[in-house]
């Protein structure tokens, strides 16, 4: 049943709600066999996990890696400014590349989900992005406040 059916809106036809636009295919897709759809479900789940991991790298591994690269530049070049600039530029560049990759993974996830038999209209990237950001913030908070403790100037006397 169409999701913009008036019965969904208490009998009032209020026009098409956001996210309820029908998906337009070049032609009516031919569904795979039940076995293939089971495999597609598994593949979709795998892609989702990869997509989540890729997004998670944005909030820890990548900044840490670029800070290390920046420190190396500082050590070899003897310039803190250059080290910070390289680390900052590198973080921005890898953020962009990661987003491109995540978008592609999200598109693949949508297609595979549809092939698995789901009426998948929207991707899940924005939700993953927000959730991983929250997870990373919580993890950082725990590490900073509980495991490592704040810097001496901030530490309780």
């Amino acid at each position, binding site marked *: 049943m169409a999701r913009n059916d008036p019965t969904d809106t208490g009998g009032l036809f209020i026009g098409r709600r956001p996210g309820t636009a029908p998906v*337009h*295919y*070049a*032609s009516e*897709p*031919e569904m795979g066999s039940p076995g293939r759809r089971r495999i597609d479900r598994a593949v979709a789940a795998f892609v989702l996990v990869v997509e989540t991991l890729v997004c998670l790298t944005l909030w820890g591994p990548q900044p840490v890696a670029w800070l290390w690269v920046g420190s190396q530049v500082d050590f070899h070049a003897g310039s803190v400014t250059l080290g910070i600039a390289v680390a900052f530029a590198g973080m921005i560049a890898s953020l962009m590349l990661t987003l491109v990759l995540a978008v592609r993974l999200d598109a693949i996830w949508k297609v595979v989900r*549809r092939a698995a038999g789901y009426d998948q209209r929207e991707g899940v990237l924005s939700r993953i992005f927000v959730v991983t950001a929250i997870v990373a913030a919580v993890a950082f908070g725990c590490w900073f406040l509980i495991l490592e403790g704040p810097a001496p100037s901030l530490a309780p006397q």
Partner: protein
Amino acid sequence: MPRFDHYRQFQELPPEEVSRELRERRDEARAREVVLVPELDLARTAWHEPPHAEAVNAATFALRRRMNAYPDPSAREVRELAAARHGVTADQVAVGHGAAELLQEACAVLLHGGGELLVAWPGWGPLPELARRAGGSPVAVRGEGGIGPLADRTGAETRAIALSSPNDPTGAPVARDDVRALCERVGERVCVLLDEALAEFLEPGEDAAGLVAELPNLLVFRTFAKAHAMAGFRIGYVLGPAEMAERLTPSFSVNAPAQAAAAWSLELGDAVLARRRAAAARERERLAAALHGTALSFPPTAAPFVWLSSAAHTGREIAEHLGLRRIKVAPGAQWGDERHVRITLRDSAATDRLIAALRELA
């Protein structure tokens, strides 16, 4: 099947692609669609616009006030206003359910027991049938609106003479002096029924209604269906000798909303009538100018319609040509005339369409 083709079929089309497909589908549907041209009815002579809002207000007020009561059986207010307008006394006015009903009643009274009704022809279409229903014999007298042939044809059997001014369908007015001359010439034995349904399109003072005060054998019929734009109310009045007016008064009164709207129109509607008269004249002039130098022409008319003929086509051909362009006109065959069509004039948009269609013919 290549490895990923199964998944490619689940990829959605980009919005531009979807729009392009929808546009193509729409263009295809439009190309198949028959172009609908609304029909333009220029065959009827009732005024094409609604009545003045104040006339409708008056009718509505009467409805709200008098829904539970019978209307004034004597239609006193309308009679007094009509009498004052035409310079007669109120007892010389009878208000009825439209001029047609009053004409029918007049035929019934005058032709009771037989006799002839001379009808200036071409004239108002239903008149011959009204005369027959009343037991009389209609006699069509051709005279292009002049009164000579009518007076000449008047004989011992003639009970009444019917003519209209402006004439329907030609639009030619009958001069006030001609009406007087006809009444005097045929004598009091013969009643002259002058249908002035379209008299509001004459310039003020050109109508013959005022002659009722001095001519005992003249009945003048007026309607609110044409220039007053109140055909739906079914109300009109007749002016004539008091005795005749009493006999023509309908047994059951005209409804209250119609009386109220008619009273408003008689009392305050002159400016509206003047505007409609000017509008009709403007469209007549535009049409005449557009047809100048073509095979199409129409005689001078005072009515909001023209009696059009062509040097190259019959009336039926003109009507068919216009009919193919969804313009409906009244073919002259209704009056036994194969050369003409009667075309009612409406607003400038209608005249534009009419001119465009007629130019194709000319």
